[in-house]
């Protein structure tokens, strides 16, 4: 035992899976990492063979001066050529088969898994938990399979959790399923990996894994905080976590949509030529049916948040926008 540990201590860190791959925090990780390292060592072997032979021949048979002796040698050898065609062929069968077995597992969600609905939109994630609670972070139970049923409101996104070795595109107009089983409590990062526009690189959230009952406790806590929070405070959190901030600034600068600074109570033009006053009803309508009235000078791009924000959160957002008074410029 100590001997193997001793031997391992001489292997440079760069040759181990913990150097190359993120923390292995799901049941897929050992499978994927095992194959990754198998291909890694196979590649190292062939790379050393190819480059080693190349360097050896280049040095041994290097030309000295301009006079060279050309010794004609074989330009063809069927046995040799068959060998170096068949050995790689056999090896790729192994890699293919191994990858296939792991993949079938990844594509076969088990029965009675914990189910979470996922909605992606430019540029926010929304997770709906059993019971209808929602959050923009992903909360999961440990050692229990979770199935994500995912769709997008606008363009294609892709949900990727490196520590789980799990990834699946989130496509508008269809449901893609992704499953995994976390094996470690704690915090992991979740990325969007299908290019989706300006804030693509900002579209990352956290994945929290809890011991038994922890998820329910956490979700109840989120619920309770929401219920008891000052509406403007809740609005501020919703503004950051639900993706509003990706398109609306709070400092007066123009982004994809109008800034919220000093917006409440103002009157402005909409694309039909009419004028509207920004009041509670207008904000509410703009969140639920964004295409109804488009502010002049902006493109109709905003996705609807119908069913994805709770009444409390909409009220919170209204209160938050109200609170953003234009103090400095007046």
């Amino acid at each position, binding site marked *: 035992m100590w001997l193997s540990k001793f031997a391992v201590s001489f292997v440079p860190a760069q040759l181990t899976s913990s150097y190359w791959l993120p923390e292995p925090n799901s049941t897929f990780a050992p499978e994927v990492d095992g194959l990754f390292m198998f291909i890694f060592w196979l590649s190292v072997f062939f790379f050393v063979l190819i480059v080693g032979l190349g360097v050896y021949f280049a040095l041994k048979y290097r030309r000295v001066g301009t006079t060279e002796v050309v010794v004609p040698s074989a330009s063809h050898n069927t046995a040799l050529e068959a060998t170096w065609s068949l050995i*790689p062929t056999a090896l790729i069968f192994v890699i293919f088969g191994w990858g296939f077995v792991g993949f079938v597992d990844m594509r076969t969600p088990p029965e009675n898994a914990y189910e979470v609905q996922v909605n992606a939109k430019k540029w926010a994630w929304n997770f709906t938990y059993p019971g209808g609670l929602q959050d923009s972070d992903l909360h999961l139970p440990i050692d229990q399979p979770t199935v994500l049923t995912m769709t997008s409101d606008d363009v294609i996104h892709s949900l990727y959790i490196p520590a789980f*070795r799990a990834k699946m595109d989130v496509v508008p107009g269809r449901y893609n399923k992704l499953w995994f089983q976390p094996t470690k409590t704690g915090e992991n990062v979740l990325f969007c990996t299908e290019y989706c526009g300006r804030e693509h690189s900002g579209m990352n959230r956290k994945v929290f894994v809890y011991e038994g009952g922890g998820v329910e406790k956490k979700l109840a806590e989120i619920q309770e905080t929401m219920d008891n929070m000052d509406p403007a405070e809740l609005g501020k959190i919703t503004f950051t976590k639900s993706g509003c901030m990706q398109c609306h600034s709070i400092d007066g600068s123009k982004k994809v949509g109008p800034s919220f600074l000093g917006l409440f109570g103002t009157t402005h033009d909409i694309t039909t030529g009419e004028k509207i006053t920004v009041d509670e009803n207008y904000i509410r309508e703009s969140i639920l049916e964004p295409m109804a009235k488009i502010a002049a000078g902006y493109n109709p791009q905003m996705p609807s948040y119908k069913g994805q924000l709770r009444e409390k959160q909409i009220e919170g957002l209204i209160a938050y926008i109200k609170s953003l008074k234009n103090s400095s410029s007046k």
Partner: protein
Amino acid sequence: MATIVENPSLTGGSPGAEPVVDNYLTFTRGWKSWAFTLDHKRIGVMYLFATLGAFFVGGVMALLLRSELFFPGQQFLSPDMYNHMFTLHGAVMTFLFIIPGIPAAQGNFVLPIMLGAKDVAFPRMNLGSFYLWIFGAIYLVAAIIFGGLDTGWTFYTPYSTTTNTSVILATTGVFILGFSSIFTGLNFIVTIHTMRPPGMTWFRMPLFLWATYATAIIQVLATPVLGITLLLLIAERAVGIGIFQPELGGDPVLFQHFFWFYSHPAVYIMILPAMGVISELISTFSRKHIFGYRFIAYSSIAIALLGFLVWGHHMFTSGQSAVSATMFSFLTFSVSIPSAIKVFNWLATMYKGSISFATPMVYALSFIFLFSIGGLTGLFLGALSVDIHLHDTYFVVAHFHYVMMGGTLIAFLGGLTYWWPKMTGRMYDEFSSQMAAIGVFIGFNLTFFPQFVMGARGMPRRYADYLPEYEFYHQLSTIGAFVLGVALVAAVGILVKSLWTGPKAPANPWGSATLEWQCSSPPPHDNFATTPEVGDPYAVESVKWSDSEHGYVKNPSYVPSKDH
């Protein structure tokens, strides 16, 4: 046009006292003699300038992107500008440089001469192909000016059907460039079929011709699919026909199938000619007959055909059925075999050779090194379960740069330095050129190797900003990119300098046995006065070094053997 009456006895690379030989560069003068030329060599040279110009533009964009990524957070490019920049870097490099780079620039110049012919089969179509390239490039530039483009070079729907940027202008440009590519391919197929000289059977063709032939098949068969796809995309954007747009009942993933049905074979349009160049270089600079000629020739055709069947590996995470993913994974692995065969054959060619480290060989050796890494890392991406983790990360970015840049660009430079004396009639400075080639090699590895590490650790691609844990690898990569940029400018600068200061090139400076080295450097307008005698293209013993010529001349004691 041509009014000069040639004396046939003076053309052809007859060694000895300087004969008065016309050359294609000075054959006629004035800008019109270039703009309306039908000479494949001049068209090749114009393509060379144009594609190198595009490469420079794409390279500057790459350096801007890498500079932005030196630190996390925003430096000087807003996320929108970053997205425009990476899109145009990809589009310019792919459609304006790598696809036409070797076939249209070097292939155009060399292919007819290798066949001992005067020109390609359809010289007007050849010029037409060049002007289509120009028009396509103008459309791409117009797209930059009128609203930019932020879809990625892949134009994925529904992003491309909903963004405000100039998708229609850019796709029109790519559509036109597609025709440019089809024209080149068609021309090469017909030329190779009909204009081979007596004695040049299919298996006496240089392997570069096998490679360009295989490439041409893909250009002609796959590019129309891209054309159709882009027209559908334009129709979807302009009038909403509802084929890709989910609200209208379309399927956005269908676009990916259409797009990769062209674009995956297109990566073989990019790499096959490069492999052809390497086969020529390894044999010439090892002074050895190429090893396993038939295996290499067949492997080009095998790659071209199998390349049509693997497009689905770009969609392992798209939600396509597990059965299709499995089939595509299996077929993807099958393509790796012909590529591996080529690498082993090149190594066997070096065995017992007389290896020179002239610049083209330095590039050929670095090709073997870089292409091996590019090919082997493809195994990770072809394996289904591992690909799920690596898909759309920097691992993929590193992999295709090792193949497309470490492969195609390095072979492009190898071919350029190899045929430069033939194209220009000048020798460049050998030592500084070797140093530049080594600089390119070091800069390249420093740029792209760290991207494998950060990709495997989860860094997604096409990110304008990143988490601080990836900073170290991004910084290595950015430093490498600048080393690479400087080395590339030096490599081209040394070649350009040779136009003024380089000594005159002999007809055959490297000792190759293919036909283009039998005519003078630079070749006369008609290439050959009489159809040259065809031998084994890899019988390097048929030429020997001559001190007085500073090049290789016919070996009088050479007796063709029947083995090859």
